[in-house]
């Protein structure tokens, strides 16, 4: 069962990373315009010609 001592911390760290990533994305305003973001992906940045 000593393997648990390694696996559980790894699981928690990975989950924690996901949580931090979510909180960061929330804070940086990525959830403010879900509708727009879904459409924005369709268009390239302008070709600088």
């Amino acid at each position, binding site marked *: *069962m000593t393997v*648990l001592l390694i696996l*559980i911390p790894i*699981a*928690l760290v990975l*989950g*924690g990373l*996901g*949580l931090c990533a*979510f*909180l960061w994305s*929330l804070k940086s305003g990525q*959830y*403010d*315009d*879900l*509708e*727009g973001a*879904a*459409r*924005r992906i*369709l*268009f390239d940045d*302008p070709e600088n*010609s």
Partner: protein
Amino acid sequence: MSEAPQSALHHAQCRHCGQESEPGQEFCCPGCRGAYVLVGDLGLASYYAKRCLDGSTDFTALRPDEMAAQGDLSAWIRPAPEGRLSLTLMVDGLSCGACVWLIEQSLLRQPGVVSARVSLSTRRLNLVWQAGMADPAQLAGLVQRLGYRLLPCDPARLASAEEKQARELLRCLAVAGFAAGNIMLLSVSVWSGHAADMAAGTRDLLHWISGLIALPAIAYAGRPFFRSAWHALRAGRTNMDVPISLAVILAPGVSLVETFQSGPHAYFDSAVTLLFFLLIGRYLDHRARYRARALGEQLLALNAVAATVLEADGTRRDIPPTALRPGMVLLVGAGQRIPADGIVTEGASEIDTSTVTGETLPRGITAGGQVYAGTLNLSAPIRLRVAAAGEATLLADIIRLMEAAETRRGRFVQLADRVARHYAPVVHVTALAAFLGWWLLGGMAWQDALMIAVAVLIITCPCALALAVPVVQVVASQRLMRSGVLLKSGDALERLQSINHVVFDKTGTLTLGRLTLVNDPPARLLRLAAGIAANSRHPLARALAQAATAAPVLSPVEECPGQGMIWHGPEGDWRLGSARFAGEPDDGTQMAVLWLVGPRGEKVRFDLADELRPDAADTIAQLKARGLAIEICSGDRAAPVTAIASRLGIDTSHAQMDPAAKVRHLQSLAAQGRRVLMIGDGINDAAALAAAHVSMAPASGAEISQSAADIVFQGERLAPISLALTTARRSHNLMRQNLMLALCYNLAAVPLAVLGFVTPLLAAIAMSSSSILVILNSLRLGHSTRPEGGIQ
């Protein structure tokens, strides 16, 4: 790079806005041509190909209005860090992702612009530029030339506390979700361990880790519930958050003691999962409400116009209407809404008072006359002095009436709250009884008895109850929004399902509230007349121009204010105007009439009238078929009101009612036990809208009536009324089903919990499955029926 698709019909489609244009012409008007060239010059012509990707086809709102002048924006500009300035504008006409792309890219190509970001959900453009490097008016003008309407708005007012609260809930939800997932992982091992001899040491280790995750997560994610429970307790009340908080605090507390003593069961997982499910419900509920309110604000901001103040030294300055002070002198151009009550000091014009009095035909006004906020100045610019605060202004009167009506309306208690009010004490009593029973009568140790009480709290916890109503509300409001019906208050649907009486306003509600051509003149002369009329802003002329939008604009046209217009055509002069102007006898009809007289004796008459909304008769028939009593309350004269009533088959109609009379009438109906749905659009309806059990207003109505109404519907049709009613009834049924489901679940599980049979595993399964069942049941609302009637 591909071209915009063009239809091969005999009428070509405008390449910019897609409206009908003259055969052989690429554009419907010079504004669209200008916009198309501008897009090409910016190197963004792929916009026309891109917008087809989105599937939306309606770009008719994109017709640039050359007369829309951008006022002074300086009052809305805010400083941003690093010597930059920022401005938030509301964008009207935004229909797809390509529009967002076009606006952002065209602005980013201007020198000095640091960032331009359009949000499609809030329809706001946030513009940041280096101070002194760009001119905001020019930037806004650029977007307007593309065909979008821009209106300045105050971001501080819009970014309200509610947005912060939504973010807090989402953060709590994330933390609870993280904790629930991880603890569940460990719990599953513990539960399997119970069956397959897990060593006590390993089990304790897993419990300890669960506890370490659960305690901080609960302390963080439980705050919204703790706060609300604390407020309720301090006010001497109890609400659903009290048993929730108790369960969420007691369960891990007792489990911690259990873990210290290396006991077999711990409830960390139940507490956190419970919190997770409850937060989902709370977040959905909040989002439905917040969205409703944000929409309301957006509508108001769209209608708010800047007021042009004339300073003593003759300079002009644009300020928000809220900053107006009594005694200021305002300049109101032709075609503008009057921003404040006041006395005309200079100029003579005609005023469209339909939003205030319900009367369709314009009223003449000269110096010394009183004008009211919200009315439309039609023919010529006027100056007016803003009425002093002490003077009785019409708007102030109506707002007073509205407030009085609102306080008298009484608090409506939502279904969920009614259930919770009865349910919460039952939960407390049962849990307490289980604890005392096992401890004192059953002779159990107090820790074990407490554990059973906690199990009762968890199992009776209204997890599904908390989801039952918000999920239905979110699904219903999204379905309605797709059809152009915006719910402005969270309980609008619940109020709506119980109505048995409908009161309509006439002008602007049953009718379109604007003049349309009602007779059938020869097409050639109509096109000619429309081409001449397109040069004027007078309402009769605009109505005529609207009757044939594809007609080319004719010039040179000379306008004689208050009389008519003369077009100096190749064959001679054509005169379009009143009967007297065209040299015809005035036959004194009530209808608005225009005459067109040509150089070779051509002569044609155009009758313009305020027509019924296209499906008014159908809607009234449908409402009648539902067994609802229907009547009309209008401020207009008796003759037109009864005429409309008899055309629609409405038996009861009341004419010449002032705002106070409407309110009195609604109150007497309420006193007779009628639950009234009021539908109105005018300023004079605002108080009545507030007094009714539930109210609807068309999006074309006055801003004050939209802010007073519970529901706002878009488009020219009345079909949204019956759609809203159907949806309200269906969602009410679903809410009741959901609540029944949740209650049955709890009732079945409570005896098990009281008898001490519920293990953490059982609690977790019961909770999750009842929540999922309720969510699935609610989603039926979105799927089982086709959406009826759409936005035009």
